[in-house]
């Protein structure tokens, strides 16, 4: 236990210190940020020549090697890091991403389970692990259904992985709340796990430059999904219970949050009519169900015997754009035979003056 604490605080110290010292590591980070991987690799090797055990530089080198497509070498770097610093979750996570790229899902799964073992609250690893389980499931289904997955499906899968990477990149979720929530926003954090550092080709620009990030750190950035939102501990109270939205929070945000809380309330009360009333006319039911079948399924679920409790945590209105809004939240669901916590993304639309759910996704 003390060992873990020590390692974490050492890392934390180096993270907090780095922005103020204009040192080679900062240069290295800048090079990585700018995508100048060859120079970054050279720089990393230079630093490692004098400080061969430096965890942060080695981590960055692993990231750079991954970006250069030198997966085997990157795996070796991260592997060694997990040997030397078994208490750090990020190298496990990145190992997992590399393994996943090679479709070695069982290895990826083991690595992520290790990451979570070291840091039970390591959100990125949790999310990635969910994705890996889904990938493993998909392989199992292919075998079950004797689908010829060699051609078409293989391409789909690769595309899916890319998607998984860019999705994580876009959401830019706080990498390690346990280790250094501040640090990531303040930039000198170990670069977010590969999932996040992979350039999102579509929108390279909206990523705020490192200098700008700290300024935004205290206020949730509403517009760009790409902006990392700070995971400050005291924030995740249900928004509805908070006094009033702060200064530059979108004016609509409070109304939207309230609509979302009312949705969870109707759900908890098992009020089917009110619950369904929170969905847009053009809501797209999951699993390809039609609206009627979905409504029946929901009505059946809601009216099952036993109580339902739905608590929302960390409700964030991440964007408002005219009559559309996106909300991210953590949902704690408890019923007679199921108890889950999951991250959800809701896309809402203002229909007839009321904010209603147009799309509901797990994850994000």
């Amino acid at each position, binding site marked *: 236990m003390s060992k873990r604490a020590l390692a974490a605080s050492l890392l934390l110290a180096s993270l907090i210190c780095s922005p103020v010292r204009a040192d080679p590591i900062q240069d290295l980070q800048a090079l990585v940020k700018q995508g100048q991987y060859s120079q970054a690799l050279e720089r990393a090797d230079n630093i490692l020549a004098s400080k061969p055990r430096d965890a942060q530089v080695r981590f960055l080198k692993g990231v750079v090697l991954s970006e250069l497509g030198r997966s085997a070498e990157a795996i070796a770097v991260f592997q060694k890091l997990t040997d030397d610093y078994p208490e750090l979750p990020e190298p496990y996570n990145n190992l997992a991403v590399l393994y996943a790229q090679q479709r070695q899902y069982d290895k990826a799964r083991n690595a992520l*389970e290790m990451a*979570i*073992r070291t840091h*039970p609250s390591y959100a990125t690893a*949790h999310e990635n*692990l*969910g*994705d890996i*389980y*889904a990938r*493993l*499931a*998909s*392989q*199992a*289904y*292919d*075998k*079950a*259904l*004797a689908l010829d997955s060699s051609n078409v499906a293989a391409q789909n899968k690769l595309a899916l992985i890319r998607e998984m990477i860019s999705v994580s990149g876009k959401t830019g979720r706080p990498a390690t709340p346990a280790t250094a929530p501040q640090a990531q926003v303040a930039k000198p954090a170990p670069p977010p796990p590969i999932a996040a550092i992979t350039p999102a080709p579509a929108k390279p620009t909206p990523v705020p430059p490192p200098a700008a990030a700290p300024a935004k750190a205290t206020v949730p950035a509403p517009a760009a999904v790409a902006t990392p939102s700070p995971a400050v501990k005291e924030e995740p109270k249900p928004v509805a219970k908070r006094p009033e939205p702060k200064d530059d929070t979108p004016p609509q945000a409070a109304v939207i949050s309230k609509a979302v809380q009312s949705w969870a309330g109707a759900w908890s009360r098992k009020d089917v009519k009110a619950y369904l009333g929170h969905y847009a006319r053009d809501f797209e039911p999951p*699993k*390809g169900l039609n609206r009627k079948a979905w409504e029946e*399924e929901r009505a059946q679920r809601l009216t099952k015997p036993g109580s339902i409790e739905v608590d929302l945590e960390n409700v964030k209105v991440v964007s408002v754009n005219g009559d559309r809004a996106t909300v991210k939240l953590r949902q704690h669901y408890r019923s007679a*035979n*199921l108890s*889950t*916590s*999951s991250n959800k993304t809701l896309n809402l639309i203002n229909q007839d003056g009321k904010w209603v759910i147009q799309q509901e996704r*797990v994850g994000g």
Partner: protein
Amino acid sequence: MRHVQFALPWAFALAFLCAPLVASASGSARSSGLPDADVTIGEVIRDIEQHRTEDALKRIDALLLRHPNFRLAHLIRGDLLLARARPLSAFGASPDAPAEKLSDLREEAIARLKAYRNKPPSNYVPRYLLQMEPDQKFAVVVDTQRSRLYIYQNDNGRPRFVADYYIAHGKLGAEKTREGDKRTPVGVYHVTANLPRQKLSDFYGSGAFPINYPNEWDRQQGRNGHGIWLHGTPSDTYSRPPRASDGCVVLTNQDLDALSGYLQIGLTPVIISNTIEWLSLDDWASERAALNREIEAWRRDWESRDVDRYLAHYSRAFRNNEGDYAQWAQQKRLVAAGKSWIKVDLSKLSVFRNPGKEDMIVVTFEQDYRSNNLSNTLKKRQYWVKEGGRWKIIYEGFA
């Protein structure tokens, strides 16, 4: 390790479908005499019901090491893994799975789970196995609706359960009547040959045992078709869905190998039913005794040389390869005139009830016939039906 695990509600739905074989018999989980695959599937579903999904996944992984082509196991593994990523509502939550394939695997899961939950009760026997001849060491009984093949040992005349296996049958079910109708015949048959793997294509897996469809009764009913076999499974899959064949009874290769150890060519009965009727041993014994009395009465009346008493055992609808009842009666009266004595001994007697709504039994024996002017030994088969509460012979011929 702690992680989110969503419930797999389908496990309960599947388990709910598992009614016991016999109303009075309590369904009890078992492992003896049951193939590995069924045991593991049964245990996995139980684990899921009890929210021990980690154990379930370990079991499935181990099973897949033993049977890498076991599609149903892959499907359940997929669900177990996906349930860690998102809630599942249906069995086989794969988003782009063809509905037909999923429903096939679901049917297979139900069949295997039923087999795991419902052991054939030890004090009940399939009604069909009334009497096996002493040389018949084993009998095979198939239940197409349960997708199950049971092996019974001839234990001094009493059928004793040995093992049962998952099987696939005709795509369009049972009660075959026509060539190409993709149905499995229902009736009393026996294995007629052993076709080794080397002589067959991969489609038949580890071997094949043809049966004598169409039998005498089938032919009289105008049923046709051919090539009904018990056979194995192609190498690309461990097992096939419950309804998959063109009429054959299909086992996994390892189950077929196990079955082949019990089969005697030309001798082992294979009785195929829609749904096995089970009799308590007491009921079975009294049914068997009653039929033996009927057969004995027929034999005695034949020896009595009273042709009317003898013919009273025959149905007016009687028919065999030589003709109908009138011809049969005329022939018997003609022959009887020259007899001063007749002695008939029956041996190697077997009595099997024909599955189906109609009361019918299939009697096979070796007949040692002696008389003042003719003696011979013949192997014969008779079909008896119940007419107005009495058993009558409706077919008799050489077997």
